[in-house]
């Protein structure tokens, strides 16, 4: 009845007008296939033009596997990095290795101990060290804890790497992140949900790792359920993450593996930075690199964020030299991006293989010098923003794009 009084022709004309306008306006707007460069395992190309030191490929899959707690892979990579550091020193490319030989030895020693224990060759369990959490509360339990409830991505990632069999549940988002292989996550059957505190209590965890943003009522409930909360707040820099690894390692009785993991991350960072130094002649001299995030608008992370700190280490975003105060990011509008004339852009994107080509449709991006030079890339946001030891992989992804192909992977 409501529609019977309409005059169809008038309305058809209006609809026709709208769709004609859109068709004319967007007919030239095509989805041209765009070549997307994502870090991938490729064969090592010729490096001799760049450096006299024979470079060994850094395989991302191996780094990833090691970061999930695979000790033999850690040992292998540590050995390779040590050899490369010595070679670079021998050829005079670097003066002193940023990760000292004694630390390499210490890491190898720890790896052997952990491996021996994991394979049951010796039973000796390192002693528990009662720790003070980041809120200053002393952890004190009648017996060494053996079951843990991680409430945050950081604690879950560290616990999965150090002792996945001791986890009773995972934070809900953990299974969607590409940090750990699904079969590893499947061994932890429960997810933490706001409404399943009773089921979680039935799993009898001894300690719950909480964050400063955990709800006070949740902390109270944990206490009432005889689950000791352990506060971890320090995750604002790589150094703080390493400290948290030590701390969690001590609480869960995996002191050696925690120390090994922390040393591995430090050695990995050093290996990447040494590779950059070794390949410095291959890097462009006139370089205006930008590291950007793309949400509804573009922005550059500041040093307050972990990704901003990575950018700072790699001298990205130096063109945006400004006082950022307490902000997490600097918004970047089209005009500013145009004026910066970036020659190299990397976007931290969710589902980057799918989203980068869509982002590149933007007419402004197409006109940047970076597009002309085919130097617009993307890295997976899940690693770039992960406040865990997987930050090493985020750093790897950026270095892999900074270096010309064949000089890292």
């Amino acid at each position, binding site marked *: *009845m*409501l*529609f019977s*009084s*309409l005059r169809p022709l008038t*309305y058809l004309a*209006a609809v026709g*007008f*709208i769709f004609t*306008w*859109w068709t004319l*306006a*967007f007919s030239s*707007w095509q989805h041209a296939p765009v070549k997307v460069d994502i870090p991938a395992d490729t064969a090592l190309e010729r490096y001799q033009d760049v450096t006299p030191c024979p470079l060994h490929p850094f395989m991302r899959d191996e780094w990833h596997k090691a970061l999930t707690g695979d000790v033999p892979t850690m040992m292998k990579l540590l050995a390779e990095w040590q050899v490369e550091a010595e070679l670079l020193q021998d050829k005079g490319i670097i003066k002193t290795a940023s990760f000292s030989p004694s630390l390499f030895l210490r890491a190898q020693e720890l790896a052997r101990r952990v491996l021996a224990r994991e394979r049951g060759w010796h039973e000796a369990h390192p002693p528990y060290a009662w720790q003070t959490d980041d809120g200053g509360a002393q952890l004190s339990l009648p017996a060494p804890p053996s079951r843990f409830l991680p409430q945050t991505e950081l604690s879950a990632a560290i616990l999965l790497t150090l002792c996945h069999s001791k986890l009773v549940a995972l*934070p*809900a*988002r953990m299974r969607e992140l590409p940090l750990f292989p699904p079969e590893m996550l499947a061994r932890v059957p429960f997810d933490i949900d706001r409404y399943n505190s009773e089921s979680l209590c039935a799993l009898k965890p001894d300690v719950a790792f909480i964050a400063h943003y955990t709800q006070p009522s949740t902390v109270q409930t944990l206490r009432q359920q005889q689950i000791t909360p352990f506060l971890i707040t320090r995750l604002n820099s790589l150094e703080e993450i390493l400290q948290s690894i030590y701390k969690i390692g001590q609480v869960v009785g995996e002191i050696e593996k925690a120390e090994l993991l922390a040393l591995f991350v430090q050695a990995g960072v050093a290996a990447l930075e040494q590779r950059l130094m070794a390949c410095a002649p291959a890097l462009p001299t006139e370089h205006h690199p930008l590291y950007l995030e793309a*949400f*509804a*608008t*573009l922005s550059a992370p500041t040093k307050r964020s972990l990704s901003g700190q990575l950018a700072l280490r790699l001298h990205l975003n130096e063109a945006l030299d400004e006082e950022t105060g307490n*902000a997490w990011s600097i*918004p970047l*509008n*089209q*005009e*500013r991006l*145009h*004026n910066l004339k970036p020659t190299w852009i990397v976007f931290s994107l*969710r*589902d980057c293989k*799918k*989203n980068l080509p*869509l*982002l590149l449709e*933007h*007419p*402004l991006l197409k*006109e940047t010098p970076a597009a002309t030079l085919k130097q617009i890339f993307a890295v997976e*946001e899940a690693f770039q*923003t992960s406040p865990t030891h997987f930050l090493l992989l985020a750093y790897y992804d950026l270095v892999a794009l900074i270096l010309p192909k064949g000089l890292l992977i």
Partner: protein
Amino acid sequence: MTLSRAQCLITLFLLGILLLAAIGTFIAGPTEWSLVRAGAIARFQGTSTAWNPLLDERLPRLLVLICSGASLTLAGIVTQSLFQNPLASPMSLGLTAGSSLCVLPLFLLGSHLSFPMLIPMTAFLGSLGTLLLVYTLAQDKGYVRLSTLLLTGLALSTVLSAIQGTVFYAFREEWSLMQILTEWSAGSTLDRTWQHAHLQLPLTLVGLVGCWSERHALNLLAAGEEEAFYLGVDVQRVRLKLFLCISLLVGGAMAGIGMIGFFSLILPHFVRKWVGHQHEWLFPAGLLLGATTLTTLDLGLRAIPLHAFSIGTLSSLLGGVFFLFLLSDKQDRELLC
């Protein structure tokens, strides 16, 4: 009816402000004006195809601002006239909530990048669907009481907002998605392109023409639906046509700058105080006031960048304060209540 001297002065004043705001929008920016001008001239002469801040960002942004401000104010005027209630607005009838909720799945599925045209289409369909649903739910034996209609709108708006809140809560750990949704729902005029302008312009134009064509019917409807019917107005047809127009205007504004609240509730009151109740004057005055207000607000936000404010949150804040100010005035309070 002709405009009085005071009304003419206000019109000239607003035109002046709009002109200044437009010039400010064109000139203000990090790029040196001489470079901007040279680039624009080169484009017109066909000697360059390079991206130009004036032609590729500031001009489409100005168009989007003018269209959005005008659309929202006009949608408010028509809604209030149609429902004969000064508290009616696309927002209070649930149109904004419906429109926003329909757009939400596009962001969840990541389709906003692949199919940007779906944003205005779904926003339009969302607002139209909500309006029709409100109308249907408010019917009692084929008759619609306007007070019931408004209350139904408020109830549906609450339900739709709750659903949206549920979706936000369900995806609270997807922080990059939250960032996108927060920015969109706060309204933004950053990085407007011709794509935004083209998405919005046809919707706005059709909506405006549709509303203008029913200005006389709206004047008659002000006396009541029954009176209007006896004076020859096909009430059902006019209602439906204006529903479609309101949906087009709201959907277009949503596509252009996202969620902007309170514009459509507050500005119509100022327009009525300024030019009276004849829609021949209300419409152009609404266009002018809406366009001027939004353009000036955007320019102000760019001149004094406040991290906490977006165009949507600032306009809501100012709108709320003005609304309280209106309520504090006894005469206005009687008019509103």
